[in-house]
């Protein structure tokens, strides 16, 4: 019998909120699927579309980006700019054939450990349902 599919989900968490939320979830011993690979970023506004494309290209099955709720940005407005960027990016990637369940965005504050747990579960389930990523994986070796 083959092993069940366990997706790899690259997760970008804002240092000031979602990363703290993840920490709180851990400290509170909340159980959540172990499929996420966390990358800490200083602000959701720091997230360059290149990061998302690079994750997919190197074999990620899903990407999830999480930042502070609107109005709570440590840098006042980083997440507002990010929101416009994400809206257009998600539209473009899906328009060009990346399945809509592969790319996720959320607002999770550092106090919302249960929301963190819930979103990880949702994201993992959505990616699992799609199966392994097929399209956007680079087959040639990377040369730097």
């Amino acid at each position, binding site marked *: 019998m083959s092993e069940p599919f366990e997706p790899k989900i690259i997760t970008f968490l804002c240092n000031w909120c979602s990363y703290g939320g993840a920490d709180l979830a851990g400290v509170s011993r909340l159980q959540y699927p172990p499929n996420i690979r966390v990358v800490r970023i200083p602000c959701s506004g720091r997230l360059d579309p290149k990061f998302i494309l690079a994750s997919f290209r190197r074999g990620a099955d899903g990407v999830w980006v999480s930042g502070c709720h609107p109005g709570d940005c440590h840098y006042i407005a980083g997440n507002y*700019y990010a929101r416009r960027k994400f809206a257009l990016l998600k539209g473009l990637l899906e328009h060009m*054939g990346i399945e809509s369940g592969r790319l996720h965005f959320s607002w999770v504050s550092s106090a919302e450990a249960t929301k963190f747990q819930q979103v990880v579960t949702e994201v993992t389930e959505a990616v699992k349902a799609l199966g392994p990523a097929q399209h*956007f994986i680079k087959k040639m070796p990377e040369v730097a």
Partner: protein
Amino acid sequence: MVDYTKEIQERAKRLLEDKKVDAVIGYRQGTVPMMNEPILVRETGKTDQLYWDSFCGVNLANYLTKRKERLAVVAKGCDSRNIIIHLQEGQIKREQLHIIGVPCLGMLDRRKVWAKLGDKEPLLVREEGDQLLVSGRGFEERLKKSDFLQDNCAICIHRNPVLYDELITDPVKEPQRTDRYEDVRTVEAMDSGARWEYFEKLIEPCIRCYACRNACPLCYCPTCFVDESRPQWVGKSLDPTDVRTFHYLRAFHCAGRCTDCGACERACPVGIKVRQFTKKLEKDVWELYQFEAGMVLEGRPPLDVFLPDDPEQFIK
């Protein structure tokens, strides 16, 4: 009908004689038919090289980036919108510019003419009203101009320059609000796998020459993302994912700034419809933020501003 070429030449000559500008950027006839090229004229004696016909598709805003001298520039509707974006993004100052506005009737696509002619080689192409006279060895054909419009010109709704210091003739009638996004909607209606295949086919011939980037007035970064090597975000290979990454990012950099001038598509040596990428973004920017690039001098581009209640249904 005013003789556009004569008007442009006279106005350029006067501007140079009066020392209002140091140079005039316009078009001149290329060495092969249907291929006009940009020219920068500094001397009054050379203004007779300036030329105008329906093959002036190059976007001249591309030649204004970070220039220091006073310039006059010939501008169609789309060029003028790109000049506005240049002004907003601080690439040139308004005081430096004298914009010679040219009401445009749409540019023609040389590839469509070639396709129509088959293996007959056009040696001379002239225009007469709404007709195009193409002649070569042993043939002469009369074509209807409106059948050969560039794809973006066929759906253009801003033919008249938005910003100008002088207009060479009366504004032309703007087309009624045409359906600008028919092709985007066709693709949107497909399922995700079919969309993937559609774009896979679309970019298959891409040779990564970056002509689309170079022709685009929006692309002026000192170091382009494709040239970055540490970290290298876009591989240099012709692996389909690298090619696609390039097209994703090139389009995304134009989000909210693209005026759909068609320079990218015109420049592509293998005829890829690269506007399919930017048009989706143009449509989204319009639907989400009701913004049209380069229409007003005031204000900022849509990704440089935000509203507290911007749409966010996609965020958990």
